[in-house]
């Protein structure tokens, strides 16, 4: 799941704006707890995957997001004592004591889970649709070495994955009994150190050790996509903040959503997706 430049308005946007837009989706999910608004956010994130050509990557991350959402929901249902409608009496459990699962805690847990899933998927969007090099160049103005360390660590992940696959293939080619796990672990560790040394030597000869803080660069003109996604990010946060609806889980579930709230949820999804309508100049 790595960044690849695609012909989409989000990929054509400068990294700072792409980051702000993905953050806006995440902030929207954090400030809203109403399921209707969170539903609008979820639709926006999913549709972005399609519109930006990264649906495959998003789909790959869905099991992780779903697992996280269900875990959050289950934990909330098990540990929250609030709620009047008991749907499952589990009795006296070790560590947690008397446990009754209530409808209210379960629903609230699912809402929290949905929020967590949106956060995960927003992060996935950021990693596959925003140029990491440009993002790191941006970060380097504040913390050069941390940004570079993050960059190299990110780069090493696929290299080490390839190495481990190679090692596994080599072991499959050995006739007879395969070597023990400890021996394999030691060989893998030695390989990782070798790789790390190689990369460290490359960093040295590329001048990393004497790296200076980069000078502020020339300003790059704002493209139509930069402007559109900036406006979209502001609109998403504004709608998430102003949307008013009633949702309270405890002691009893109360969800009131009028036309205004549905309009805000629809507006949030529309505001998030509107920049994708203009596909002029999206190719690299």
């Amino acid at each position, binding site marked *: 799941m790595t960044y690849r*430049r695609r012909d989409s308005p989000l990929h054509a946007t400068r990294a700072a704006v792409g980051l702000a837009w993905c953050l806006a989706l995440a902030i929207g999910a954090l400030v809203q707890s109403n399921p209707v608004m969170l539903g609008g956010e979820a639709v926006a994130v999913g549709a972005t995957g399609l519109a930006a050509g990264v649906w495959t990557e998003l789909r790959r991350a869905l099991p992780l997001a779903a697992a996280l959402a269900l875990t959050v929901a289950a934990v909330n249902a098990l540990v929250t004592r609030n709620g009047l409608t008991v749907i499952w009496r589990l009795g006296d459990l070790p560590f947690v004591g008397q446990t009754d699962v209530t409808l209210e805690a379960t629903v609230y847990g699912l809402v929290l889970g949905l929020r967590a899933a949106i956060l995960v998927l927003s992060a996935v969007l950021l990693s596959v649709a925003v*140029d*990491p090099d440009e993002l790191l160049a941006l970060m380097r103005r504040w913390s050069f070495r941390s940004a570079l360390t993050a960059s190299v660590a990110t780069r090493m992940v696929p290299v080490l994955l390839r190495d481990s696959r190679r090692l596994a293939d080599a072991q499959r080619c050995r*006739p007879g009994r395969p070597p023990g796990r400890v021996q394999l672990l030691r060989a893998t560790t030695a390989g990782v150190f070798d790789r790390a040394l190689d990369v460290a030597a*490359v960093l040295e000869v590329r001048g990393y050790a004497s790296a200076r803080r980069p000078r502020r660069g020339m300003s790059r003109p704002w493209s139509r996509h930069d402007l559109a996604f900036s406006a979209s990010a502001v609109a998403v946060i504004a709608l998430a903040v102003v949307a008013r609806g009633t949702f309270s889980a405890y002691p009893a579930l109360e969800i009131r959503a009028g036309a205004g709230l549905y309009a805000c949820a629809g507006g949030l999804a529309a505001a998030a997706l509107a920049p994708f309508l203009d596909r002029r100049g999206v190719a690299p």
Partner: protein
Amino acid sequence: MSIVSLEGVRYAYPGEGRPALDDVSLEFEPGELVVIAGGSGSGKSTLLRAVSGLVPHFHGGTFAGRVLVGDLDSRSSGPGELAASVGTLFQDPETQVVMGTVRGELAFPLENRGWGAAEVARSVEEAALALGIDGLLDRSTASLSGGELQRVALGATLAGRPSVVCLDEPTSQLDPVAGDELIGLLRRLGEDFELTVLLAEHRLERCLGVADRVVALSGGAVVFDGDPDAFLGWALREAPALATPGARLLAGVGLRPTPGVKRARSALRRVGLLNDGMDVLHPTDAKRPEREPALRFERVWHELKDGPAILRSLSLTAKPGDRIALMGRNGAGKSTLLRHAAGLLESTRGKLTKTGRVALLLQNPTDYLVHDTVAEEAPPEALERFNLGHLAERHPRDLSGGEKQRLALAIVLAGEDATVVCLDEPTRGMDRHAKHELAALIASLDQAVIVATHDPEFAAEFATRVVLLSAGRVIADGTPEEILAGGTYFATEVARILDGRALTAEAGAALLTREAAPA
């Protein structure tokens, strides 16, 4: 006025008693293309690392003498400071790329120097244009082939306009086409920008024709320093393993050795040994007994999900006793074919049949070595067979490259009998002597042998059959005389000199002597 100067440099790696560089004194002029020659362990890489400042700053160890790059002394200036004047390119393109996009990679060393954005952008564009990689600038580095990665790494090396560039076997992982392109590019950069190029290479026939000077090392000491013509004469007398096939051919007919195909042809033409209209080499018609194939690919496809087809209806058979050299450009499907044979990959269409186990030696022999001693890696009889018995108590990772290769081969051939032996690029980074030993080892195997290689000289030494792959298909399958004698990239140096009438220096010299003899 020299751009790089080494004065009495002695260096030993930490914990090593034997010096890796022994009293080395050299001076390199601006714009020189210098080939650093020598066998494995002769000190070539260490010399380059001393110029780039990695020795001693990165590796530690004991250092004496002085290395000056321009006004910078490597004792007081580390690799980071020297990087402004010295660009360094290593062997493995995979580990030389640290950023996510090509543009980011080329900009990285410049940003490290605190250059402004406009300067960085301009230099990145210029380096990309000079290397012909401007079309790759916005590509992800993860999507590049080995050849493209090596060019990008060279771009990152050159973007800061260094005055010296050190290249440590940069073509060892490239196919012949990409390798020749890289060498040609270095020559042009030297001429256009007065760039001093220090190039360590094992395949000297590839680069001597464009070199201004050759420095040969042995045991860390300089044993020769002169022009390529003089080097070949010296090599034939003192270090035959370093003599190119072309030089051996000329020496075989009593001519003074000279580098490069064009000059060798001129030398032969001057004495009437190379005439137009001579017969091309006829394939040997050695009839082999008909035997059941040990391995048979029948219209095998390997199609990646959401990706291209790597093998496209590939058909191939290998019989016991066959010595097949599998050749083709990077990405042609050679490794994929071998992985299918060994059962590491499943075909998506087609049929693969084999009569027994297929032993596969992958590109990196170190991947097979997981124990603390050589004795634990393979049974004693396998170690003896590959002449490793005397190393039984050594740690496998302490062995030389050639010894590791033999040990890995002993591991995959141990136990139940394999009917097919596959080797994937076994000669990467090997010197000529080690290649010769490996060719002899392959010749001693009874099984069908398939070797993926980029090295036509090595293929000519062991192969009874050469299969050329392109885009997942077999485009040529014939005897070495049929495949390696024609063309440019997949031909041996002697074949190129003699218009495909012989493959090896010895055969070529015999042919010319026969033709020159009075009837």
